[in-house]
């Protein structure tokens, strides 16, 4: 499970930022983005529910010359209770990547009511 960015502590100002691009190894076809969330143990991470993020994941299959949208999500800050009753430590997105070589991925992060402080992890499987 190669990590393209591992727990990268970022403070994302309001507006749009780009995470990456990162080279994607061959023979992987899933992309996972994790943004750490506010928990009792780490209350300074993304604490405000009013702080929102729009993530758009883009992939390139020609070495970065062109990118196409793969998927994305929107999320808000604050503490969330997961189905298992615990505090949710990460907002996570899993999505497919088309097989190929010479691939890159990047994520466009649009923050409102920032800054948004989080640890960002990018994995490909």
């Amino acid at each position, binding site marked *: 499970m190669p990590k393209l960015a591992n727990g990268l502590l970022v403070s994302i100002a309001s507006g749009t930022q780009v995470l990456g691009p990162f080279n994607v190894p061959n023979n992987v076809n899933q992309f996972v983005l994790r943004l750490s*969330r506010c928990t009792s143990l780490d209350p300074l991470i993304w604490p405000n529910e009013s702080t*929102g993020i729009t993530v*758009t994941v883009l992939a390139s299959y020609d070495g970065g010359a062109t990118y*196409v*949208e*793969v*998927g*994305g*999500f*929107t*999320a*808000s800050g604050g503490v*969330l*209770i*997961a*189905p*298992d009753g615990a505090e*949710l430590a*990460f*907002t*996570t*997105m*899993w*999505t*497919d990547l*088309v097989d190929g070589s010479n691939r890159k991925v990047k994520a466009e992060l649009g923050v409102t009511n920032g800054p948004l402080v989080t640890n960002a992890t990018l994995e490909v499987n």
Partner: protein
Amino acid sequence: MITRVQHAGIGGDGVNSVSKSFTSNITAGNFIVVQMSSYYGDSTVPPGSVAVSDTLSNTYTVRSHVEDSTTDAWASRSAYLWAANSPSGGANTVQVSGMSSAYVALSILEYSGVADSSAYDTANQFRYRDSDHGSATTTTFTTNNISTAQNDELLIGHVGTLVTTDIYSGDTGWTEVRTQANSFNNHAVYEQITTASGTYALTGTFSAAQAGYSACVAAFKAAPDDSVAITGTATASISETDVRNGGKTLIATVSGTTFVPASVSQLAYVGGQVGSFAGTNSTTTVTFSLTGGLASTPAANDLVIVAYSVGSSADRALTIQNTGATNYTLVGSELYQNGTTYDSNLRVAYRFMPGTPETQFVLSGTGAVQDAGAYTVHVFRGVDSGTPLDVAAVTAGNTGTRVVNPGAITPSTAGAWLFIAGAAAGGTGGNFTASYLTDFRATSSADNNDAMIGAGYYTGWTSGSYDPAAFGGGGTDDAADSWTAVTVALRPSFTTPFADARSAIVSGIDSAQSEGTGWDARRSTIIPVANVVRTSDTVCTITFAADASYDITAQETVTVTIPAAALTGGVALVGTPTFTIDAGASISGATLAATLLFAGTVSPGAVDITGTNIAGTQLFAGSLAYVVSGGTIADTVLFAGTVSPGEVSVTGTTIADGQVFAGTVGQDGVVISGASIDGTQLFSGSVVYVISGANIADSQLFAGTAAPGAVTVSGTSVAATQIFAGTVIPGAVTLAGEFISATQLYTGSAVLIVTGSNIAGTQTYSGEVSLAGFVNGAHIASTVLQGGTVVLALNLYPSAWTGMSGLYRVVARFRRF
């Protein structure tokens, strides 16, 4: 046939919305299914607030759902299944929104072959909660039953539960397409394409017992297979003669697709721009920098329309030119309104871009440094280059206000677009608005006399008059202001897809046989492209033209294939049924005998009879054309009807009949050749004959009226009791033979040429000879040679006269008045 094209998915923890792009572009007309399993945790999102959209602006309808509820203490999962037809193709990203910190597994799928409309048939869903079943877990899942309406349908659904791995196993008939998970939830998407209507449910088992699950299923009808049904008078079997005569029709009716349109407008919007400047006496050069359309600069043949507004206190002379000082073509007239203080000047002009498109244009000075200028640029593609303005432009203007109210226009050509430009002059300008216009560009320019301009286009006109609404905005209106406006209808150029495909349609009507004068060889003559008519979106009518050269010896089977170029579906379709063309009758044999061989109507060349002996009481009773060849041909009535020129040829060693030709035949209608020709009455009607043979004898060979050159009788011996009983006109009869003898050769008014060694007859000429008759022969004997009136001359050149002795040569000239 329903086919899955592609699928993709996304999972998310703690998200308000998710979006997922299809890997490949969606194909226009295909069917999209979106399925989501979600868990809301402690969210307060009410059920039903979740919505689906995509970047192709498709409209999704939820077809099955099991919704979570914040009042549900069990906090089970929700399941949704949405579907949409996608009329448009292209890159597509689906977004599900309206959630609040949800845990989502989303799958998106594209199918082809699902009905375009009314695809939805039925659906069902089920949510299992152990609390409803005495805390019992389950190892099976179901959606509950659905009953489908037609045989071929897409059944699609999913099941989800709080696991992170694929623990699902669908029952027989169901195919697991994909699974999608987040940290807590996993769903599996199943499909089944049915071949029989009936009762179905998405059912299966879990590999581990579950306390709950949610499952959905929906059924969607397959689109009817594209097909072409062939009807018309050419089906299912026609004759060779039908093809020769023309007039038969093939009617091709398509279903599941349509014929390509008769015409398609080529109008497209390239882009626009707007600009302004303060008053100046200098020219202003503008570089094209278009936005909002297909391109940033015009291409060859694009139509550039520039509207130039000047706010002034006078009537200014404006120009719009290219950089080579060539004027753009003025639309209507240059407009001027003499306001109380502020005068509006507006010049609208256009230019088709040359092969090397221009990159700039030049505006004249405004006329004074106090007069501000403003302009708009709109560029269109596919405008009719010969007549770009569909009808005369409509101009309008007024004083006492700056509110532009463009004039109404009535275009004449379907598909015309309207271009509307308005200008105004005032003390303090503002930007106009016109929400009904596309890519409305507006600006104003400040100076002593402010200039305002706004322009855009309208594509919604279909018929009648269109009266554009007055512009909004424009700043504070004042009685000292004035305005001007131009309304233009742009005539589109068209392509003609159906007309262009007609030749291919004709080529697609193909025979399984390949005779030299058969269907495939004669197809382009039998069906000229003009005879291929687009009757409606689904019907094409093909009419056969006459083709006398079509000639086959064996049946042809013809298949109609509508080519891809003629169908919007872009796939060629083979029509059903085929049709056959039967060859004309052909009879061959040593001996042919029949009471009534052909009683109907046949066309020239339709019947060939070949045999050593041909005998029948009545061989041909109708209108017909024959070729009869044989050693012996004998019948009571061979030809009783009417035949046309060249239609009958009888060749045989012996031809004998009581009445061979009883009807009327045209020039060269009958050719009889044989060693012996004998019959009581061979020709009783008005005829044209050629008779050649060694011995020709009959009681009455020719009883009717003959035209010039109509009768030629050549033979060693020609003898008959009454050879010519009717009226003949000059040159009508030529007798040539060594011996010509008859009791009454000519009883009517005739002009004859008789040439032979021996000519003898009791009464050779008993009627009136209207012109000249010639009898040349070695021996001519007759009791009464001329019994009637000789109007002109009869020359006799006997080498020997009966009763004379010695050698004489007598040249006699008879003239009677």
